[in-house]
């Protein structure tokens, strides 16, 4: 089977409008969580969120931005950064065969602002005032499709939807398709933009969100005894992945290798996590990667900071690693970025790739009092160096609906070159 490597990275997140800013902030233990100043938030039980550091509309052509839902805007910014980072050109300067390029870019909810915004317009001003672009803006495939238009991808556009696992699923899907020779190169990732009264109220009604409104930067505290729910985040994250041969032929800088992906479904509960499904997803990913638990130096946990989710994942990781538990550094970058739902998998896979590339794991901040009996080694509060040499890591994403997708990356095939 073909080897698939990672050659470009891009992101627009609560920690920065691009990946270098985001990565620096991650290493420094910076929180991207703040109070939502808007009036609509004041009546909610949760009034904090991880809002984008840079409004994507502000860094795009104004007319182009008008035709894109916010979720598509994030996707476009992240995708174009990843594409340029991979050393690839656009339009007349593109050197990629469009028929061998696919897009796999997921989202949990899609164009919510466009959907609800136009419903508001219809109620206030009537049907004639509904934007003629409403449908192409609200549909969940819009981010993926818009990116495909811009980069000229003709081998297929895929937009997996699996809640918080969407973008890990998108990565896994493209990984499979490239190995099946449906394409040689792919733009993969995820996006989410649902910081809006309805989802904030709805997640709040589920008791899923942290209510630490008076200390927003301390609210996201995965694995801490005082975790009380996740913090909703927004943003986009994308990678360029391609076959090793395709990358070498064009002299691309390689960040690492995608070596395995494992998917399971719990078939048990729509919102509660299941250890069995998580463990098997990780095991499947390792099996495909021809690795054993002892080979895993680092795990970027799903780690949402919920009282239900954190301990279940900790137990899954313990079960997976067995005696190797002390040789593996676990972290949850959601402690800083919040939970980007459909973009979480991609952002956290990027963080995992960067951790291996730079041999340093970003911290899990706010870990003042770890829950008892976690039994895993967490990079608490400060970044943790990783050993030199060959490394492999797992990124987990577990979504409402019982979706579990684990992605395994290694630093094989890494080439020296300008790193962002």
């Amino acid at each position, binding site marked *: 089977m073909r080897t698939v490597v990672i050659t470009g990275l891009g992101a627009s997140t609560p920690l920065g409008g691009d990946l270098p800013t985001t990565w620096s902030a991650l290493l420094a233990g910076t929180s991207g969580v703040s109070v939502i100043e808007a009036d609509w938030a004041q009546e909610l039980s949760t009034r904090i969120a991880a809002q984008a550091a840079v409004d994507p509309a502000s860094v795009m*052509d*104004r*007319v182009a931005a*008008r035709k894109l839902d916010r979720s598509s805007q994030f996707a476009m910014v992240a995708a174009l950064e990843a594409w340029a980072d991979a050393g690839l050109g656009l339009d007349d300067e593109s050197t990629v065969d469009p028929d061998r390029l696919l897009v796999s870019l997921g989202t949990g909810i899609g164009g919510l602002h466009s959907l609800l915004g136009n419903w508001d317009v219809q109620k206030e001003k009537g049907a*004639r*005032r509904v*934007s*003629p*672009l409403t449908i192409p803006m609200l549909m969940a495939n819009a981010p993926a499709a818009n990116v495909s238009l811009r980069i000229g991808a003709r081998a297929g556009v895929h937009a997996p939807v699996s809640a918080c696992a969407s973008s890990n699923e998108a990565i896994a899907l493209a990984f499979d398709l490239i190995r099946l020779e449906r394409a040689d190169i792919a733009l993969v990732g995820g996006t989410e933009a649902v910081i809006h009264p309805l989802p904030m109220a709805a997640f709040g009604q589920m008791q899923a969100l942290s209510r630490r409104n008076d200390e927003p930067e301390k609210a996201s505290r995965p694995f801490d005894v005082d975790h009380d729910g996740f913090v909703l985040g927004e943003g986009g994250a994308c990678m360029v992945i391609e076959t090793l041969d395709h990358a070498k032929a064009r002299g691309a800088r390689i960040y690492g290798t995608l070596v395995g992906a494992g998917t399971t479904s719990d078939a048990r509960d729509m919102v509660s996590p299941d250890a069995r499904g998580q463990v098997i997803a990780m095991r499947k990913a390792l099996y495909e990667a021809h690795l054993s638990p002892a080979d895993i130096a680092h795990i970027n946990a799903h780690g949402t900071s919920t009282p239900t989710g954190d301990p279940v994942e900790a137990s899954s990781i313990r079960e997976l690693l067995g005696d190797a538990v002390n040789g593996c550094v676990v972290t949850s970058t959601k402690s800083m970025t919040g939970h980007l739902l459909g973009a979480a998998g991609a952002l956290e896979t990027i963080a995992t790739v960067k951790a291996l590339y730079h041999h340093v794991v970003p911290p899990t901040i706010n870990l003042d009092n770890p829950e008892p009996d976690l039994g895993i080694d967490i990079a608490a509060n400060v970044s943790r160096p990783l050993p030199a040499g060959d490394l492999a890591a797992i990124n987990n994403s577990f979504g409402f609906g019982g979706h579990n997708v684990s992605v395994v990356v290694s630093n094989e095939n890494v080439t020296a070159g300008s790193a962002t």
Partner: protein
Amino acid sequence: MATTEEIREQLAEIVNDVAGVAVEDVQLDKSFTEDLDVDSLSMVEIIYACEDKFSVSIPDDDAKNLRTVGDAVAYIERAQA
């Protein structure tokens, strides 16, 4: 009541806002789709913006006959009379 030139200018701002066309390009003899490259969905938005801006009604049947900037300006002038 606005002059032809005033209407053209305000329309030009709308076309610029919706479709990014340079204000000075929005001249009476220009076709929206052929010369100014405005697509059909943007035309719909432009029509609605005109209804709001000029306080006129432009039903869909009439809107589809407004091919040039001049057609639109003339329609608005008549509607305002």
